[in-house]
């Protein structure tokens, strides 16, 4: 039986074809294109003096958006970032660092350093003082 290609049918096939092209073709779109207005995906690695660290916090300054480094010290920032955005890298016991995204930034390599201080501590007390001379 011969299929007649009516104009309705033609339109239907074309629509399906167009749909198929867009639906099954993975779109990497904006990522890694520095000129894009929507921003770019930033990856990086955070280390201390002895190597990459797990659990460092990387956040976009003044927001709640962020990510935590994995056991290799790596992170991929979950949202696209623009030039001029500031990432804050922090880890308990270390000095917090800020990193400004430049035009050319795609991968960040950062070393954070320990806070320099000595732990001390005197707890307060409500225990009534007793002088030695009053015996």
């Amino acid at each position, binding site marked *: 039986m011969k299929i007649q290609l009516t104009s309705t049918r033609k339109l239907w096939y074309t629509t399906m074809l167009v749909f198929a092209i867009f639906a099954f073709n993975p779109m990497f779109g904006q990522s890694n294109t520095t000129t894009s207005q929507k921003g770019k995906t930033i990856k990086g690695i955070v280390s201390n003096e002895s190597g990459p660290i797990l659990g460092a916090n990387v956040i976009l300054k003044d*927001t709640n958006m962020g990510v935590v480094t994995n056991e290799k010290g790596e992170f991929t920032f979950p949202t696209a970032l623009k030039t001029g955005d500031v990432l804050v890298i922090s880890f308990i016991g270390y000095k917090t660092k800020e990193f400004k995204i430049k035009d050319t930034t795609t991968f960040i390599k950062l070393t954070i350093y320990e806070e320099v201080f000595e*732990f001390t501590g*005197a*707890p*307060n*007390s*409500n*225990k009534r003082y007793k002088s030695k001379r009053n015996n």
Partner: protein
Amino acid sequence: MRRITYIFLFIFVFQSNAQIADFKTVKFDKADKIALKYKDENLSNLPQLSYKLTSELTTDIERFRAIFKWVCSNISNDYSMFTRNMRKRRRYRNDSVKLAAWNAEFKKTAFKKLLKKNRTVCTGYAYLVKELASLAGIECKIVNGHARTSTINIETLDINSPNHSWNAVKLNDKWYLCDPTWASGIPNPTTYRFQFYFNDGFFLSDPNIFSINHYPQNEEWFLLAEEKPTFNMFLEAPVIYGNAYNYFSNHLEPKKLDNTVKQNEKVTFRYRLLKNINKNDVHLIVEKNENEKKVKPSFISTEKTTLIFEHAFDFRGYYDVHLYIKNDLIATYSFEVKK
């Protein structure tokens, strides 16, 4: 109309606390509520914690309050850690290599404990307050120095080896002092285990009362414009307790813990008040040879925000004198009474 005036006074004057007087129109209900709301947060993500505590608040003072309140209500003071650290620091006092090694090792365990168990010693409190405040864009510093409490033997204090840390914070271009460790709680009197008990007096305390039992290593952090106490003056100062910070903005007299007076000589006690108090609430416990007596001061005045009273000793001997307002222990002095 008069009633309205009194209500106004009650709200805006009597609640004012120390340097907090600068912020008397600011209410901390919202900040305190936020601190409570995030009670179960841990320390694994400080930027996020700082954001949660501060993003709903509009002024720096409120933001800082939420951070301070959170730290003081969620971090407990580890006394065994404190004792072990002080013992080692004292032992290695004259051995800089060993001392540095100990400090490095202790710092590591201290941060681990802070992260996993929310337990620390003073520097941990000061560090957290500083870190969370900085993440919120508030300038805050750790101040190291000496502290004096009723249980610290001053003979063990060495000017080169600080025993306490607290914070200085810049709000509206002015520096303020606070002590998160002491604001968080005190040891239970019987079990000696840490007990949360928030003391508002250590939040933006008046630098004058603060200098009675805090001696910063760098004297700029006294935040006192006039005469700053010397280390000896600090060591000789009377013992004041946490409650003193809720009643006084300054302690004026007697200047020393140990005093020598003559029999029947009048001793003057003088304090700058933070809030109005009832004269009848002031009393002394005078202790001599294991006997103690509750005494009402012979003369007492609370005019011009200054509390003044006098006491004289009838007999010779050694006395410990404790000042109380209601049931709150405020300060202790010792007297040798001679003929």
